[in-house]
């Protein structure tokens, strides 16, 4: 993959003497100290990151941490105080007005928290705005607007006014307006922040859905951690204008860089971060043919397991539980039961990428969950207890998973 957007050592100081403030920052003074001493507000300090083509890069942080400032520097709405922003090798931070206009018209669109639709124009005219600015003739831009509206499911509303639409629909228009100009990069500043939770969820799904075909490079601002987890490949966490950690959701949750990040991810929906892969263990199996009930019981007793997967060649035939087998042993003295009879064939399965969230239901059945690959071969099993322990966050991450040594290392890192 190719780097689309590369930001290095980006600063934004509001007010005051910029070079003096940069000097203070270099001396390690904090945002608060600088504000008290010079009256200058540090918006963003020393931000560096790269966004690959087609990636959704999420920026998170508390209110006032500089997210909006950061994202507005990317399209030059705010002029950086220092640093470099390369888009396809062109430095936005150094661009003059004409160059900035060209970049905004062709490469970058923005989607706003409060939609920012023009109230006096119809939905279609709003969507076509980027094209109008570029000088595309009316018939052509209307055609394109209708095409994009079709994509976001709003074609029937093309000639309504934005005020006739619900919040969720208005933001679809905002999204369509961003997409109509066919930019490479979408900047989204808390685009779903003003929507109620149900609609927000729907919009997130819609975005992911569109992204499958569009493959835009997206910089997505949010302060909803679960939204970040759902959308983001990589997440950058900001504090006082600094990016304190960049990484995937798993990386950040398992190894938070500092207390701020740890506090941030404390109330995370772990069920969405971790997958079956993180909690599974190597399966202990027995073949269907040639294993007696008594053998199975013995194996379980030795391994401390309360259920075993029964294999029929490469295929999983079913699962037997200690309780069932022991019970049948006790009563069936005369005619000894076979594994075949005691076996439960309706067993829960999952793939390695299934989130813990989705494992929660199957785990309720009490049976170990079979993790299979796309050809139905058993890769591992997930013990119900491990799902619950991991969801609550007190289990060591991936305690029984295959790459054991790595797990131990991450475990030792400070929390």
């Amino acid at each position, binding site marked *: 993959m190719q780097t689309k957007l590369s930001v290095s050592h980006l600063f934004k100081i509001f007010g005051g003497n910029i070079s003096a403030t940069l000097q203070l920052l270099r001396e390690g003074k904090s945002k608060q100290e600088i504000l008290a001493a010079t009256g200058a507000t540090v918006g963003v300090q020393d931000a560096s990151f790269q966004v690959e083509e087609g990636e959704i890069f999420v920026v998170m942080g508390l209110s006032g941490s500089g997210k909006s400032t950061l994202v507005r520097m990317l*399209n030059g709405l705010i002029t950086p105080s220092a640093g470099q922003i390369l888009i396809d090798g062109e430095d936005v931070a150094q661009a003059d007005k004409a160059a900035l206009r060209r970049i905004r018209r062709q490469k970058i669109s*923005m989607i706003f928290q409060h939609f*920012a639709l023009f*109230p*006096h124009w119809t939905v279609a005219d709003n969507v076509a*705005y980027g094209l109008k*600015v*570029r000088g595309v003739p009316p018939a052509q831009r209307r055609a394109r607007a209708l095409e994009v509206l079709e994509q976001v499911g709003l074609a029937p509303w093309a000639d309504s006014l934005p005020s006739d639409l619900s919040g969720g629909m208005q933001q679809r228009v905002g999204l369509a307006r961003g997409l109509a100009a066919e930019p490479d990069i979408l*900047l989204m500043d808390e685009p779903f922040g003003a929507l109620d939770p149900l609609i927000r969820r729907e919009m997130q799904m819609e975005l992911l859905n569109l992204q499958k075909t569009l493959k835009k490079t997206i910089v997505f601002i949010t302060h909803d951690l679960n939204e970040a987890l759902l959308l983001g490949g990589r997440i950058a966490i900001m504090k006082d204008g600094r990016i304190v950690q960049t990484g995937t959701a798993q990386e950040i949750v398992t190894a938070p860089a500092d207390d701020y990040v740890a506090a941030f991810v404390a109330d995370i929906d772990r069920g969405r971060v971790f997958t079956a892969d993180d909690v599974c263990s190597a399966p202990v199996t027995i073949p269907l043919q040639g294993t007696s009930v008594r053998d199975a019981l013995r194996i379980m007793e030795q391994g401390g397991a309360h259920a075993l997967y029964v294999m029929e060649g490469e295929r999983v035939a079913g699962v037997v539980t200690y309780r069932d087998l022991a019970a049948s042993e006790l009563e069936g003295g005369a005619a000894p039961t076979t594994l075949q009879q005691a076996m439960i064939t309706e067993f829960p399965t999952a793939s390695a990428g299934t989130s813990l969230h989705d494992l929660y239901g199957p785990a309720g059945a009490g049976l170990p969950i079979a993790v299979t690959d796309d050809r139905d071969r058993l890769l591992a099993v997930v013990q119900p207890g491990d799902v619950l322990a991991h969801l609550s966050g007190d289990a060591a991450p991936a305690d029984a998973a295959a790459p054991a040594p790595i797990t131990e290392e991450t475990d030792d890192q400070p929390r």
Partner: protein
Amino acid sequence: MISPADLATLPFDDWVNAFVRGWLVPNFRPTFRAAQVPISTVLGWLDTFFRFVPMIVMTAAFAAAAWKTAGRGMAIFTLLGFAFIDMIGLWNDTMTTLAMIVTSVLFCAVMGIPAGILAARSDTVWRIMRPVLDIMQTIPSFVYLVPIVMLFGVGMAPGIIATIVFALPPVVRLTNLGIRNVRGDLIEAAEAFGSTGWQMLWDLQLPLALRTIMAGLNQTLMLALSMVVIAALIGAGGLGLVVNTGLGRLDVGGATAGGVGIVILAIVLDRITQGLAERTNVGKLSLGQALANLFRLRGSSAAAETKKAG
């Protein structure tokens, strides 16, 4: 008691005299004379046109406009009011006054709206413009009548210039206000899509500020009407002259008739323009449409008649 006047007296009036009579008038009189040409031209056209259109047609046009913008009651008032003016023999004077008012408002709009736009775009321009507008509004109009006569002479055009000085501030102020009040995130959005300053002005700022600008024009119109009598002192004709003549001859009847004419005209114009401003529903109208409406009501009579309310 000691007072500053014991220490020194300043011949302030002499200074002003020296400045205006000694420097401004001899050097710039021709320039100022030339500057009033566009005003006289427009006024001439309008005056001819308004007098040319038969009274019945004019009244019908105004009544239709009043119906469309302010409702049936206002339409009836317009019919009765204009008929009354005609019956007391002041129709021609009223049309002259109307031509003057329209000319003043037209020039106020042509100068004031761009000035307001400039002021909205730059804090520095606004900082300079604001005290100037304050002075224009607070200085008693009699004070600048004298220099205006010296520079422009007497007549209709100087009267309109005095009117413009007095009536200009609201449209500048409200244009500035309307544009500055356009939501910041909309401006940001326009900018984020790479619009130029002109595109932003035309697509976003003017349409969204239109309602406020119209309110400003309405105020300007009312101020212009209130200058009618004063402007007549320096040779502007129309209803103002009727009032002044009545005053000079202690002719209570004549002065009252002129005054009533002004009041009827003021009420009609005020309601129509106010209705227009209110109907400039930001959600529904494009700038072009709204301006078309405006000119339909101002200018031609036929279009307003055919166009029904709704």
